[in-house]
């Protein structure tokens, strides 16, 4: 029954928010409705339309509460009147017994007027249905901190009147990247944690994939949403192979590719085709790169020319040094380590990468392959200082030891 509630919670909240225009009230009566269900359903049986049952119960509770608190009701009446003028949400999901109104909530939670760290927390709390304690665990932060952040964000939503609405077609291109960014950031943190003993925070990555799926279902025609989901699935398909038996980090060339999740990888690849059915966006192109890796039998057998070409497209869309770094690594694979290193050392905006761990690792790796061992050792030491998780540090120590070993052999 818990899982039913978790799935229904986001929908229920979204419907209530749309009707009452207030996140706190919606949350409160949603919880009360779930509590009532926990008492009633074991006695009366689970209703045929559990979502509709929960919504009706929650609405009744909200009306009761508004009767008791007339000032509050008067305030909400204004908001509600405005909400009623909005056109009803499009496209009901045929499998569901509640209309899906979560898209409004996605845009509210990712509103640019909210601080970036609050956007992720709100999305996890209200769309993924996590408790505040679970959101805090996801961010490795004290529950009190996250709770304060959520309270402040809700206060701003209410007092600054951040609306619960899907932006119109003219605003959508400006606002959608913000929503995608929230999901992407959650996934990135789940994929490679910024600190801690574990490389991956699997449950966080799972949540991000789930959110991307919901968003794709709500906006099937948006190619960048398909691109984001395709990217997340293609990368997430490798999750089991990325760490060894002792939790150590395994790089692409060390991974047992039979442990990659085939069906998930195929699903990702299919989405790439949707994402690239028109002018390419950054998520679609990244998804295509990830899918090319998944199709390859091994690292040497990877279509590096195609990957370099895709990085060229990506760099034209978003000329950031991080993309330049990835492109340089791909060029090193296509041509030779020397070519990659030259690109790396000539990257515009290179000083912004100085504290970026993958930059240090890529440099160290290329120097090692070129036999410039003293420099490689120095670069590995730098990477070690920057690495966030224990498994990354273990890998780098292993590599550093092998470089030092080679130096000794050279001397002996």
């Amino acid at each position, binding site marked *: 029954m818990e899982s039913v509630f978790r799935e229904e919670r986001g929908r229920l909240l979204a419907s209530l928010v749309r009707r009452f225009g207030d996140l706190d009230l919606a949350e409160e009566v949603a919880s009360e409705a779930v509590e009532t269900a926990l008492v009633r359903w074991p006695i009366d049986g689970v209703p045929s339309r559990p979502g509709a049952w929960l919504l009706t119960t929650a609405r009744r509770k909200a009306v009761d509460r508004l009767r008791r608190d007339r*000032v509050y009701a008067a305030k909400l009446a204004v908001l509600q009147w405005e909400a009623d003028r909005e056109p009803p949400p499009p496209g009901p999901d045929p499998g569901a017994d509640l209309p899906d109104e979560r898209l409004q909530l996605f845009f509210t939670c990712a509103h640019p007027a909210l601080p970036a760290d609050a956007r992720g927390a709100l999305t996890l709390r209200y769309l993924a249905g996590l408790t505040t304690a679970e959101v805090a665990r996801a961010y490795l932060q004290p529950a009190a901190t996250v709770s304060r952040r959520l309270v402040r964000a809700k206060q701003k939503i209410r007092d600054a009147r*951040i*609306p619960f609405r899907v932006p119109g077609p003219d605003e959508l291109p400006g606002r959608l990247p913000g929503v995608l960014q929230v999901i992407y950031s959650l996934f990135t943190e789940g994929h490679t944690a910024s600190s801690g003993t574990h490389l991956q925070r699997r449950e966080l990555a799972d949540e991000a994939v789930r959110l991307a799926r919901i968003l794709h279902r709500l906006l099937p025609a948006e190619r960048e949403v398909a691109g984001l989901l395709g990217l997340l699935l293609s990368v997430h398909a490798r999750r089991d192979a990325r760490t060894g038996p002792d939790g150590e980090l395994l790089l692409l060339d060390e991974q047992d590719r039979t442990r990659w999740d085939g069906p998930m990888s195929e699903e990702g690849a299919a989405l790439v085709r949707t994402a690239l059915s028109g002018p390419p966006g950054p998520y679609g192109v990244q998804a295509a790169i990830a899918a090319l890796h998944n199709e390859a039998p091994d690292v040497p057998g990877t279509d590096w020319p195609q990957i370099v070409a895709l990085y060229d497209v990506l760099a034209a869309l978003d000329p950031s040094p991080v993309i330049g770094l990835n492109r340089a690594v791909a060029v090193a694979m296509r041509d030779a380590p020397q070519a990659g290193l030259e690109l790396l050392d000539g990257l515009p905006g290179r000083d912004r990468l100085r504290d970026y761990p993958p930059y240090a690792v890529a440099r160290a790796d290329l120097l090692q392959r070129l036999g410039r061992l003293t420099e490689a050792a120095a670069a590995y030491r730098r990477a070690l200082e920057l690495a966030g998780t224990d498994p990354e540090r273990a890998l780098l120590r292993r590599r550093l030891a092998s470089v030092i070993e080679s130096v000794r052999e050279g001397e002996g």
Partner: protein
Amino acid sequence: MLLIHAGAIEADGTPEGCDVQDWMAFDKAVRDAGILVSGESLADLVTATTVRVAADGERTVVDGPFAESREVLGGFYVIDVPDLDTALDWAARCPGSRGGGAVVVRPVADFGA
């Protein structure tokens, strides 16, 4: 409330990047939309005077402040719109948001409850 912070000021005292016609057009648009509550543009900063009253009741009056930072409050509009997105749209249309300037959108506190 839209607080209009001017960016760079040209030699003749008008903000860079927009002219009087832009402001007149914006002002007319706000009035025609029926959302205007109030609005003023503020006189040049050299005319500003600051008053402070200390705990002992002593009043200090000083000339200024003068622009230490580039951003100076140059005027404001109070508009009545349903939500933040609408307010942000009006802020973006305001000529004060261009040419290095910025418009800060702040809800007016509601003590009506």
